[in-house]
């Protein structure tokens, strides 16, 4: 039985379809990534899966329970770190965690042990008695993470959990989560705008855009679809038709005012590509990353010359999304 099974899950807000009928199985113990530009419908999907938002139509099973008809059963097996902070800022960090332990029926001994453990993890032990109102943004974020991990749910939803955290904290937390996944076989659904994070952590990734899945596979598979290497060229008048005529370019995309040409192997392709493209200002060659995959599926491709304006806007959105 899959840990999570979405069945034509759909949510509309007025005339906007934020999630357009997702169907998808996520396996037990899987680390699953949900990537997509701002407004793609990631948070809406997670809120439905955690029973906080009612689907317009369709449904999903989480831990074998229906999110629409058995919400309380679903809530017994999940944990979530919300995109927006949801701790009570008149309480102290410790009090927020204690409240969480009480809400999740942890007996006092275990609760205190876990509180110490997660406080240590997110490095808030010596600030635990400070009022959350006086925490910094990053500290607040870390408290939210500590809280979500504290009761060790079977299925853990993380909505951009590491946004705004320094690299050290992120490293720390991911180590811990990975150990949890390994030791307890919990299932994790993660949304993030940090592509290297998703690449490293996720067993599978779904790229969503406008409420629809546009790609779904392992990070490695997603990258091979693009081919092996990306040659990024800045040029005043790139001879793209000539490059296309070569027949060795897997994809040609415009990215931030440059042109990204994906090829199977840059070692043999670089010479002919540069020859065809004409005079260039700069050249950069690197292996394809998940970022390229993301751009490929959610940014618009070069061929749509008519939609140039739309593309520029989209690229702005993406950039603000990745900060």
């Amino acid at each position, binding site marked *: 039985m899959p840990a999570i099974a979405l069945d034509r899950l759909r949510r509309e807000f007025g005339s906007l379809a934020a999630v357009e009928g997702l169907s998808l199985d996520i396996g037990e113990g899987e680390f699953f990534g949900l990537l997509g530009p701002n407004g793609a419908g990631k948070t809406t999907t997670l*809120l439905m899966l955690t029973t*906080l938002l009612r689907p317009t139509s369709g449904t999903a099973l989480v831990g074998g329970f229906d999110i629409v008809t058995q919400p309380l059963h679903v809530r017994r097996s999940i944990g979530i770190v*919300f995109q927006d902070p949801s701790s009570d800022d008149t309480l102290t960090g410790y009090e927020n965690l204690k409240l969480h332990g009480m809400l999740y029926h942890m007996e006092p001994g275990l609760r205190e042990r876990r509180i110490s453990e997660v406080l240590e993890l997110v490095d808030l032990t010596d600030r635990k008695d400070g009022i959350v109102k006086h925490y910094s943004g990053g500290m607040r974020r870390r408290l939210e993470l500590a809280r979500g991990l504290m009761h060790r749910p079977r299925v853990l939803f993380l909505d951009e959990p590491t946004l705004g955290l320094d690299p050290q904290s992120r490293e720390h937390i991911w180590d811990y989560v990975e150990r949890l996944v390994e030791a307890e076989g919990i299932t994790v659904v993660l949304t993030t705008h940090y592509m290297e994070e998703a690449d490293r952590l996720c067993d599978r990734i779904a790229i969503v855009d406008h409420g629809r899945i546009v790609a779904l596979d392992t990070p490695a598979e997603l990258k091979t679809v693009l081919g092996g290497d990306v040659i990024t060229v800045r040029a005043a008048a790139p001879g793209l038709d000539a490059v296309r005529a070569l027949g060795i370019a897997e994809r040609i995309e415009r990215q931030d005012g440059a042109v990204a040409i994906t090829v199977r192997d840059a070692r043999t392709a670089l010479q002919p590509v540069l020859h065809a493209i004409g005079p260039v200002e700069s050249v950069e060659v690197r292996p394809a990353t998940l970022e390229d995959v993301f751009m490929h599926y959610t940014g618009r491709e070069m061929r749509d010359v008519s939609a140039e304006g739309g593309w520029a806007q989209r690229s702005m959105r993406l950039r603000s999304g990745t900060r």
Partner: protein
Amino acid sequence: MGTALDAAALRNEIGGIAAIWYREWKVFLREKSRIVASIVNPILWLVVFGGGLGRNVTVPGTSYQAFIFPGILAQAALFSSVFFGVYIVWDRKIDFLKEVLVAPISRTSVFLGKVAGGATDSVVQSLILLVLGAILGAAGILPGLSITPASFGAALLILALAISGLVSVGLIVGAMMDSPEGFQLVSSFLLFPAFFLSGALFPIDRLPAWLTPFVLADPLTYSVDALRHAILGTAHFPLALDIGVLGVFLAAMVWLGSRAFDRMRI
């Protein structure tokens, strides 16, 4: 097997109620201005209204200031209880509501935890007012008012019953509102008529007859009446009727409140 499971489920729900209560209590202790504000207002009513404007009003059996003391107790309980509902709007605004609604406890327990939290706040406030009343009565500042340990305890029990129902009303309104302004507006529409019709400030038989149905439909009427039984020893209705009405009112509000919380979305 079935009963063991049920007992565990029940224990979990009670734990959930305790969790919500714990949070409300912590917030109450931290926000001292809430307590101070809720005490100052009733004292002003007692002294300014009772001692000034009401100086020439006569009521059967006691002084006017002693007569309105139970009324002011009920009024203070009414306002602080119903206004507690605004904090659910606030919880939604700061997103804390998500943490509560995603927890593995039923909405009924969330509601009951909130009722317990709000009722505790108002009961603490009532306790302070009762102590003040006893002191002012003994000192002769509120002539005719003498509060014995027995009347003190009885009044507190009656207040706890009335307050639980009133907090429920506030929470029901709060569950349906998404802005504090909306809450303020709706609750004002409920609060002022409830207060003025309750007989807190005058004997209800002095009101025009056409208002009688509204007076009888006002739950605060019975709170005030029961409190007069406890504190002054005389009142309009039999005590059993007052308590019965307040009990039915509480049961109805808890039922409605559970439903309102069940429907509540983030």
